[in-house]
């Protein structure tokens, strides 16, 4: 069983490749990459001339909602959304019901992924039991069951002491602890960013400092313990400075940014559209500019969507009462190509790295490369494809996006997992 991707522009940052080449996939792996490869007997050949062939994209921050919230999303629908969006793997957060705070839940998610999933699924275990921030979850069991990181995402462990112990306890497992950095006293009751827009439209704001103080704390705790702390959905210019400083001092801190924090500002909230409500909130132009710069220079290691599906009833109505978060898997690549790469803010090869090689590196996963022997996970892009975001066509079960109707140029064309095209 083999497949030849013929004539595409191969961008493989891990191996320094950016050239028109063929990619031969066989037995689920990359077999060869080179100019004008010969197709073996019985090999399917896909003409991808004019397209861009990349290592499979990995979204390290996704909410698949299963078990417990299957009305929002399931492993089946969430992985189809991932495939439609050009992602060959996702890491799923622990805020399911029951919470993924023990090996049995991890086993369940992996079993569902095996049966229903069309892309690779990597569970993330809870840091604390029930995400309550009070006592450690059974972290060793979670690691053994296959969790690739730990996070109480959606909540932030407020006790510095408990978080310090979590960082220490997980050191032997060699996986990062992911921080949803939010001081819940500074962010109390917030619906959006604190600033001139919150003042005008009368919504409770969380200051950027609510994020920054926790990022500072977590960097100090990473330094104290020697652990790897990964900052989820970093959204402020201040947090960028802190991470940049931490990295310069040799602290093991990494960070991700979402497409929505890169392309939207708090001005979008003026409509009171609950699809502009997320945690952390949309910030200011000054912040988005700092985020783009940090993504380009590597201060921010990768892009992750924080795909957060919610049912319509949870995302219509009063802004104050709406759920936090938006879906992201099916809009991320087009947004990034259109808003960052086309205007020249981010080189294409850098974006490819931030979506493939870098998250793979952070989580210690297979993939992220098109070297022979690597998993046959490939994302093919069409840089000229014009798309209009239409939530009715999402594979995700949920439609909560602020990007409906956006016209974008550039889109994922093909998603291959284990050497085969996924048709979501």
């Amino acid at each position, binding site marked *: 069983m083999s497949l030849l991707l013929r004539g595409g522009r191969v961008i493989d940052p891990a191996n320094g490749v950016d050239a028109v080449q063929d990619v031969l996939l066989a037995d689920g792996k990359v077999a060869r990459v080179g100019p004008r490869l010969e197709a073996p007997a019985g090999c399917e050949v896909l003409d991808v001339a004019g397209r861009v062939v990349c290592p499979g994209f990995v979204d390290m921050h996704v909410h698949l909602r299963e078990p417990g919230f299957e009305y929002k999303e399931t492993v089946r629908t969430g992985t189809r959304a991932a495939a439609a969006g050009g992602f060959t793997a996702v890491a799923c957060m622990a805020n399911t019901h029951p919470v993924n705070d023990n090996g049995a839940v991890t086993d369940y998610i992996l079993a569902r992924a095996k049966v229903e999933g069309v892309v690779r699924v990597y569970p993330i275990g809870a840091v604390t039991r029930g995400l309550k921030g009070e006592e450690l979850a059974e972290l060793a069991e979670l690691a053994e069951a296959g969790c690739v990181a730990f996070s109480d995402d959606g909540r932030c462990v407020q006790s510095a002491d408990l978080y310090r112990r979590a960082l220490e306890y997980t050191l032997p497992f060699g996986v990062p602890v992911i921080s949803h950095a939010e001081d819940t006293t500074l962010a109390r009751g917030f619906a959006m960013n604190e*600033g*001139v827009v919150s003042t005008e439209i009368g919504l409770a704001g969380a200051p950027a400092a609510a994020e920054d103080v926790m990022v500072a704390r977590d960097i100090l705790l990473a330094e104290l313990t020697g652990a790897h702390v990964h900052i989820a959905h970093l959204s402020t210019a201040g947090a960028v400075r802190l991470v940049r400083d931490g990295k310069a001092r040799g602290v093991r801190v990494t960070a991700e940014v979402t497409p929505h924090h890169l392309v939207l500002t708090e001005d979008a909230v003026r409509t009171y559209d609950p699809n502009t409500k997320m945690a952390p909130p949309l910030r200011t132009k000054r912040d988005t500019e700092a985020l783009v710069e940090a993504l380009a220079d590597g201060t921010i290691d990768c892009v992750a969507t924080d795909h957060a599906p919610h049912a319509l009833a949870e995302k219509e109505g009063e802004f104050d009462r709406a759920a936090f978060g938006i879906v992201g898997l099916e809009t991320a690549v087009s947004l990034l190509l259109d808003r960052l790469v086309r205007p020249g803010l981010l080189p294409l090869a850098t974006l490819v790295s931030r979506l493939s090689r870098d998250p793979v590196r952070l989580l210690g996963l297979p993939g992220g490369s098109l070297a022979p022997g690597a998993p046959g996970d490939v994302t093919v892009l069409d840089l000229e494809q014009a798309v209009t975001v239409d939530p009715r066509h999402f594979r995700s079960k949920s439609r909560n996006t602020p990007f409906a109707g956006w016209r974008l140029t550039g889109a994922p064309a093909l998603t291959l997992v284990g050497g085969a095209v996924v048709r979501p």
Partner: protein
Amino acid sequence: MGWTRKDLLAMRDLDAGEILLLVDTAASLQEIATREIKKVPALRGKTVVNLFYEASTRTRTSFEIAGKWLSADVVNFSAGGSSVSKGESFIDTAKNIAAMSPDVVVVRHAASGAAALLARELPCSIVNAGDGTHEHPTQALLDLLTIRERKGHFEGLHVAIVGDIAHSRVARSNIHGMKKLGMTVTVAGPPTLIPPFVQELGVKVAYRLEDAIRDVDVIMMLRLQHERMAAGLIPSLREYARYWGLSLDRLARHARPDVLIMHPGPVNRGVELAPEVADGPYSVILDQVAKGVAVRMAVLLLLAGGKGGDGA
């Protein structure tokens, strides 16, 4: 110029001409209150629904009287004891009411943006009667009408708005309205009650009552909600009253003799306003309430009149 909007949601949306049209219309309708038979047929056959999700005496009554004097059929819906207490969502309740074809829905709700949400979802006219900490446009309009009657004009006047600016929809609506009419606005209060970046709305900020009230034409005192103490924004009512309460003595020493004292009500006597100030010669607080009916008549008339009704 004429009125073209479907809804009245926020003073921020209006231009000076629209604000003056509303104020002028209200001024001309005040005379109805003096008639023996307080009724004109302008909105006969029109239905106005008062959809109130927050307790309100003054505003709801004011809209109800305004509608009735214009001969509209007025229906009051309050959240307690309705389908809301059975768990129906705001949107569903609103859509159900809309299905009964009202001409105007007047909405009061604790969530900022609630009126805009209805305006987006419902085909009828929406009047914002106060949404969270966002805006309360009819309050600003009645304040403006009161000010013009006393001062004769808007341009060049200086107003101090004092108190909990951060949580005040009255302050926001007045800031927008007053700025558009060429007035100068100073907001004042302890820094914890001044919202961030408020200067970008074009106002001055003062952190001492004495500084705020010096040489202004109008002092608008805001109600201090007791829950601001629980939230840690001020140490005590006692301290607030001491530094931010408007007493006769402070007025006499720092304010101009022709200053107007306004308050959107309800007044915390002895906290933000000394009783002798609230009831004193500077105070136009009850005048504001009277103007409220005229302003709400003007709003209902401009939104619902002239669309097949009997006309004014």
